[in-house]
């Protein structure tokens, strides 16, 4: 019945929506940033545990649609063990992929995150996918918004 939506709602997305990974409050987080999309009410809190410039651990809490939940769940999996620079680079690529400006975007280069490429065809849903990454960007760039447990 929903054949047209197969590109947008891939099985991986349903899976992450049903069982979000790293879905927990991190008590000893070095950075904690809230992301909010007032248009749709999606709300998430991203927690990062840093080791130097390395993202040692990432987790989140919040509520949102399947696209935004899957996106943040996938993101927390992928950024663990990456440096800040590597994470920023991924954000850039993810942004390019979801806003669909580059027709020749190499989906293989972005690995697992390619399952979210379907939002390109749904302009109203792009923000659902990118909320997680904008929140990460804020966590990495804006020290004032972060909290320290020390």
């Amino acid at each position, binding site marked *: 019945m929903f054949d047209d939506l197969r590109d947008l*709602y891939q099985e991986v997305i349903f899976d992450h929506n049903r069982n979000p990974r790293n879905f927990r409050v991190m008590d000893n987080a070095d950075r904690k940033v809230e992301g909010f999309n007032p248009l749709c*009410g999606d709300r998430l809190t991203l927690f990062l545990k840093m080791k130097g410039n390395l993202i040692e651990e990432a987790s989140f809490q919040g509520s949102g*649609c399947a696209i935004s939940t899957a996106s943040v769940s996938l993101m927390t999996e992928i950024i663990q063990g990456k440096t800040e620079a590597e994470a920023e680079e991924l954000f850039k690529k993810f942004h390019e992929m979801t806003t669909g400006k580059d027709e020749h975007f190499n989906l293989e280069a972005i690995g697992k995150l390619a399952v979210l490429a379907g939002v390109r065809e749904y302009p109203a849903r792009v923000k659902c996918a990118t909320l997680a990454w904008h929140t990460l960007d804020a966590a990495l760039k804006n020290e004032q918004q972060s909290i320290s447990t020390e």
Partner: protein
Amino acid sequence: MTEFDVDKIRQDFPILAEQIRKKPLVYLDNAATCQKPQPVIDSIVHLYSHDYANVHRGVHTLSVRSTDLFESARTKVKDFINARSDKEIIFVKGATEAINLVAQTYGKANIHNGDEIIITAMEHHSNIVPWQMLCEQTGAILKVAPINLQGELIYDEFEKLINDKTKLVSVVHMSNALGTINPVKQIIAAAHARNIPVLLDGAQAIPHMTVDVQELDCDFYVFSGHKLYGPTGVGVLYGKQALLEAMPPYQGGGDMIRKVTFTETEYNTLPYKFEAGTPDIAGVIALGAAIDYLTAIGMDNIAAYEAELLCYATEKALTIKGLRIIGEAEHKGAILSFVLDKIHPHDIGTMLDSLGIAIRAGHHCAMPVMDFYQVPATARASFAMYNTKAEIDVLMNGITSLIEVFG
């Protein structure tokens, strides 16, 4: 028309023949805006093809024709809501501008530091923010009458809020997020017992029922044209003549003046005092065409048909496991707001769109209502006179299927 013929009505709305994502359009976002019948579309084309010029200005033929059409639309609005006089009908951009107009003219002149304004917890942002702005400017206080879990105003609590400091009551006639129809006559009687004027936000109510401002005895009534099968960009402020006469003007400019020198300006009489600048001429005339169309069908016939639709949709919805209706007031207009267990309204919206079904997913510009029900958003199917039970079946099948897909 004595009998309500939905098939015939549907034929008057060209957009209803559209295919969306290769499926027949099922348009259930009527509370956001409703579609336009051919006579409304034709009236705009005809005006610009044959009769158009600026109004209230020229002596030339077209200006006279345009002015006549424009002013006859005002009379149509007056008759439609049973106002006493054309002078009580002010054309504005929409319900939002009408409320802002009252806040910034009547409000600034009559509401002062420490005074109170009462609204309800089910208001659209457009009946919250203009009053908050007025309160910031004047030091007045906004009081909010609470609602119960069914989405009904808790009337006793509302009544308790009325006191000597209350200077205005501004309530929604029918809620856009919940469908609730408020006991406005009771509210008005209680407020008038203390000489407090009442504004009714009729944006949602006006396309669904007969509105008689004299019978209601409201002091102000506001609505938008585009929710009444008319075009966007035009709306109406009704106000009792004595109140409007006493109010300072809203915006300055052409049309709203009688005489201007650099030392002083004499304002025009009603309704022009509040209509500065060239108005939405085509919009007003097309709104008149919409009113003609609705009058021929009969608002009571529309109300009866839509009540049947809502009843059918509600019964069907209640059989779907995991579906929770938000807003179950006893007196309710044709709006079905709902949430599904573990499925976000935006996913519902996208999935239904792929089946050709247009619903609204979001906070419906009523964030306090979402907070009250502790949901980030709801999905909302809102019905119009051209919707059918067959379309409701398509909606319900769609919902059942998407629940299966999400597992």
